[in-house]
């Protein structure tokens, strides 16, 4: 009986020892050297793996950052300046200048402005709908409202409004990672320079049709009438392809173009309400 025990224990010990030896040599042979700083950098990154930097995940960005000579073109849009400063400190390099941005939707075609001309009966997926047809309205550039951007957003910054059927982007939650920009098959989402108090002035339309068809399809479409371009004193507005575009770096938020736009396709957001100058004057005249 006791010999059985001894033999068993001996056999098992021998096997364990052999396995340990083999494991040791295998581990030596397949050892991969990794710069320990990659782990340090990765620890600082936000770990959202959103892909906003252009890499598959935070680890890949960390590897690229450690390898790179300068931070040219490498930045974490989510973490912003503070994270990049820390990364620079670890790697002993100059931190890059990061300009905070925010995503905006360049379409304002809610049902009250865009009449429905057909009903989409398929999978709620913008890319599939985009491959199939121009959309439920006459506008072949506008938002489907099927929420590819919502699904792409790793920060829950976007939801589809039940009233307008359009995505709403939260200024606080948006980290400008750009995932929604890539997800949108119609390229309706733009990352714009962030301004004080989250103020925004932009053309909420992407319709490249001529004025007539654009207007017929949607009441708030840009009809490329050139009025905004003329009124802008800072050369911030360009009209290309029947569509106006406001350059956020040149715009001074004077709001002249907003009142000038005949279709109301230029939106002003987070501004204090205007003084009702015009109406007051009208009343005084009447009086």
């Amino acid at each position, binding site marked *: 009986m006791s010999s059985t025990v001894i033999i068993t224990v001996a056999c098992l010990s021998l096997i364990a020892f052999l396995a340990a030896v083999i494991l040791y040599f295998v581990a030596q042979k397949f050892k991969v050297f990794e710069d320990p700083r990659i782990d340090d950098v990765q620890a600082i990154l936000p770990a959202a793996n959103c892909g906003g930097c252009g890499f598959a995940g935070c680890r890949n960005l960390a590897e690229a950052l450690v390898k790179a000579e300068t931070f040219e073109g490498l930045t974490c849009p989510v973490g912003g300046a503070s994270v990049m400063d820390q990364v620079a400190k670890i790697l002993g390099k100059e931190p890059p200048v990061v300009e905070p941005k925010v995503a905006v939707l360049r379409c304002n075609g809610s049902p009250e402005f865009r009449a429905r*001309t*057909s009903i989409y*009966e*398929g*999978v709620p*997926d913008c*890319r*599939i709908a985009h*491959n*199939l*047809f*121009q959309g439920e309205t006459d506008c*072949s550039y506008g938002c489907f409202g099927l929420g590819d951007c919502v699904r792409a957003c790793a920060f829950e910054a976007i939801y589809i409004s039940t009233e307008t059927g359009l995505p709403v982007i939260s200024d606080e939650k948006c980290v400008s990672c750009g995932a929604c920009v890539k997800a949108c098959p119609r390229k309706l989402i733009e990352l714009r320079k962030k301004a004080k108090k989250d103020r925004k002035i932009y053309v909420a339309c992407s319709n490249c049709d001529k004025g007539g*068809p654009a207007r017929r399809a949607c009441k708030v479409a840009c009809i490329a009438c050139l009025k905004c371009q003329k009124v802008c004193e800072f050369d911030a507005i360009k009209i290309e392809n029947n569509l106006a575009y406001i350059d956020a770096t040149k715009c001074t938020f004077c709001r002249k173009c907003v009142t000038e736009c005949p279709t109301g396709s230029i939106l002003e957001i987070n501004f204090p309400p205007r003084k009702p100058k015009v109406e007051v004057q009208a009343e005084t005249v009447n009086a």
Partner: protein
Amino acid sequence: MLKTFPIGGVHPPENKLTAGSKIQKLDIPATVAIPISQHIGAPATVSVNKGDSVKAGQVIATSKGFVSVNIHSSVSGKVNKVDTLIDTSGYKQTAIFIDTQGDEWLETIDRTDELKTEIKLSSEEIIKKCQESGIVGLGGATFPSHVKLTVPAGKKCDVLIINGVECEPYLTSDHRLMLEHGKEVLVGISILMKALKVNRALIGIENNKSDAIEHLKTLAASFQGIEIWPLKVKYPQGAEKQLIKALTNREVPSGRLPIDVNTVVHNIGTAFAVYEAVQKNKPLFERVVTITGKSLPKPGNYIVRIGTPVNKLIEAAGGLPENTGKIISGGPMMGKALINTDVPVVKGTSGIILVPQDEAGRSESQVCIRCAKCIAVCPMGLEPYLLMSLSQKDLFEKAEKERITDCMECGSCSYTCPAGRPLLDFIRLGKSTVIRMSRERVVK
């Protein structure tokens, strides 16, 4: 045992409501809108201006490049404008709008019904004539026919296959053509044989059209080398690769063309158009369209001028029923849903199907129960459930390895899925993404 293709296939209800209705002429509409892109390949270039007078059969847009064909006016009248309108693609496309005045054809066109059997043109002349006359595959794919007739250097064709399968439910335009214009179709096939320099042609016809099979068999006795083969009824037998497999047992390798197994496939409708172009000098500006649907008072088969809005066709068939929920251009398995009834009939429009409101919707998608029916019915031997989930998860490289590009979008998988899953919707998305990715790779 009737021949058929070996793997997969489904049996949707046939619903050939119009199999017995004679082809009628549809009245010429007051205006037509002729899109300049009615074929696969480069759109034609507009060659008329606003205010020009045109005759039926006159070229109004010229082919641009080899894979492109001419577009002809289908009516006589004045060019009103060149503008955009929504066509079967679901997007706005450039089209030429013509206001009709009378019905004057080009003088060169032979308007008689006389059958001309003697083929005077040479092989090269026939191919050239096809491009000039705007002949494209009329089964629905609208691939320019002259491209298929031009056998590339180093390859040879030994048998011509004619697709008289019409495996889509509802559609009967090819069926009626075979019955009413059998002789013309057979002459057309002889012309195609001459162009390809082959002496054997096989016509595959599904067994549910026994009258057409009998009729063509009697006629074909006086034509050299044309054989009629009845086939077992199974969808999608009309698909090129499946038809070749059924008739000749040759299997077109993945990613290759029928010419790689020494065959060329043309459609019955194309053969008829080729006859008209070559023997009668008449370009392709009208075609047979089936207008059908269970709710329609008078479904039928009509000869329709290209560019006629669909609503004219619906009017002729008894008017749009109140409860119409969906209008399909083409068959119910592969056709496209139309956005409105102003969409014009184009070269690829084989039928218009009206679907009532209660049948137009889709059932709710449920979880996959892994019943494997999609795999069993896939005629290409793919795994639709897997391709769908890969596309859903954006794993396009994997989907490419699973040969997503072999999918020909026949819809058998979505048709058969008991859980009502939108398999093909996602597979299409994956397929188009994979094709785009591989093109980008080539560019790099």
